[in-house]
């Protein structure tokens, strides 16, 4: 399996350990990731600024995948939705696609509609498959994990075309393949609030704080995320959330490939787990 690896902005800016863990795990699973060093932004920030700028930015990334002759893999749910929505809009509207291609012509590019873009969770779940992952696990984990899907992996379901956004199980299955238990918890498919961080700061801390407390209440020992921004909310901002809510949470947060890598026998430092903000008790993974 071979993919064009689109990083987006949040991961290289704030969560390089997510990229690090993804690369390590992919290598061991023989998933070849080809770099897109000038990949830039997926266009998502422009959805609320200018529709055509957004579409042209996403089309640019899609055209890069076409040029490489590879499907695109993202690790940010925002990026995957941004690319999927733009693809759907342009693939179903020839007039729109030709308008956007006029813009792309200025940078010597063209979008033909021949490329797919998908999130790493879907690459693992749909392309690699549970069977192969099960075989790759050499150190089954004895952990209780809470899956946080990330809104844009699932919604809007008509455009994403993956799972029921109120009853998804892919990330839970990906957790359980490591030997860990995926716990159910109240409001499991609720948002982390990340996108409102600049404008509704206290509110979004309450949103992610409530979620963390729901996870903890259900017995989770670890939170598992599949998006750099969700991870910022739960890990990076956990201390700020604790002080706002005047409560102790203390839940370590793993990027999914960090969890999988541990179960594949990799060292925590190799997976960048030492760079996570909320420290994880080594006893949790010494089984």
């Amino acid at each position, binding site marked *: 399996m071979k993919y064009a690896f689109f990083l987006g902005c949040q991961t290289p800016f704030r969560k390089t350990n997510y990229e*690090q863990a993804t690369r390590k795990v992919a290598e061991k699973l023989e998933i070849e990731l080809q770099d897109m060093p000038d990949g830039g932004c997926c266009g998502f920030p422009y959805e609320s*600024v200018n529709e055509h700028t957004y579409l042209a930015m996403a089309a640019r990334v899609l055209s890069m995948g076409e040029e490489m002759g590879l499907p695109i893999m993202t690790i940010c749910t925002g990026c995957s939705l941004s690319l999927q929505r733009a693809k759907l809009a342009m693939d179903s509207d020839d007039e729109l696609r030709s308008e956007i291609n006029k813009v792309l012509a200025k*940078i010597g590019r063209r979008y033909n509609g021949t490329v797919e873009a998908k999130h790493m969770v879907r690459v693992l779940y749909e392309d690699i498959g549970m069977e192969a992952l099960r075989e790759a696990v050499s150190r089954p984990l004895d952990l209780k994990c809470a899956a946080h899907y990330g809104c844009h992996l699932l919604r*809007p379901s008509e455009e994403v075309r993956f799972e029921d956004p109120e009853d998804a199980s892919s990330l839970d299955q990906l957790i359980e393949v490591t030997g860990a238990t995926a716990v159910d918890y109240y409001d499991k498919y609720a948002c982390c609030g990340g996108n409102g961080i*600049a404008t509704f700061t206290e509110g979004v801390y309450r949103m992610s704080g409530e979620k963390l407390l729901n996870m903890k209440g259900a017995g989770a020992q670890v939170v598992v995320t599949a998006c750099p921004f969700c991870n910022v909310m739960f890990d990076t901002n956990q201390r700020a959330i604790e002080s706002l809510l005047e409560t102790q949470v203390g839940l370590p947060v793993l990027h999914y490939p960090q969890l999988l890598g541990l179960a594949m026998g990799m060292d925590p430092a190799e997976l*960048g787990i030492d760079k996570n903000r909320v420290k994880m008790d080594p006893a949790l993974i010494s089984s």
Partner: protein
Amino acid sequence: MDVKEKIALETAKLNLSHCFSCGVCTGGCPVARLEPAFNPRRFLHEMKLGIESGDEIWYCVNCLTCQERCPTKVAVADFLNLLRQESILSKGAPAFVKAQVESLKKCGFAADLGNERDNKKREAQGLTPLQTTDEIATIIAATGGDIQ
């Protein structure tokens, strides 16, 4: 083209006229639960009455729950994007949007990446360097996406 005209053009595309005011969008909204001033159903009615909504339209966390659950398939979250686009044209963009746009024009990423300092940090972590691109600046200029 004023706000009302432009939104009228989008009405069909986003199914805005399907709304029968059931309130599911607002009932399931995680922002509305914490901040009653944020009310997607009200924003839709304000638009229909030609009233400009307040700055709380920027509280949206873009979780798309409203759009997912709407029984008449109104593209509620896309409508909120449209309101924000219009708000930028009439009142200017919030500081965080301006900062993102500046960064995109400068390096092609929404954050300061691809520079020597950042690439050194990446190298130390065993990661390959990123490259800046001016293609995004060209796209922004060609689509009228620049904001001041």
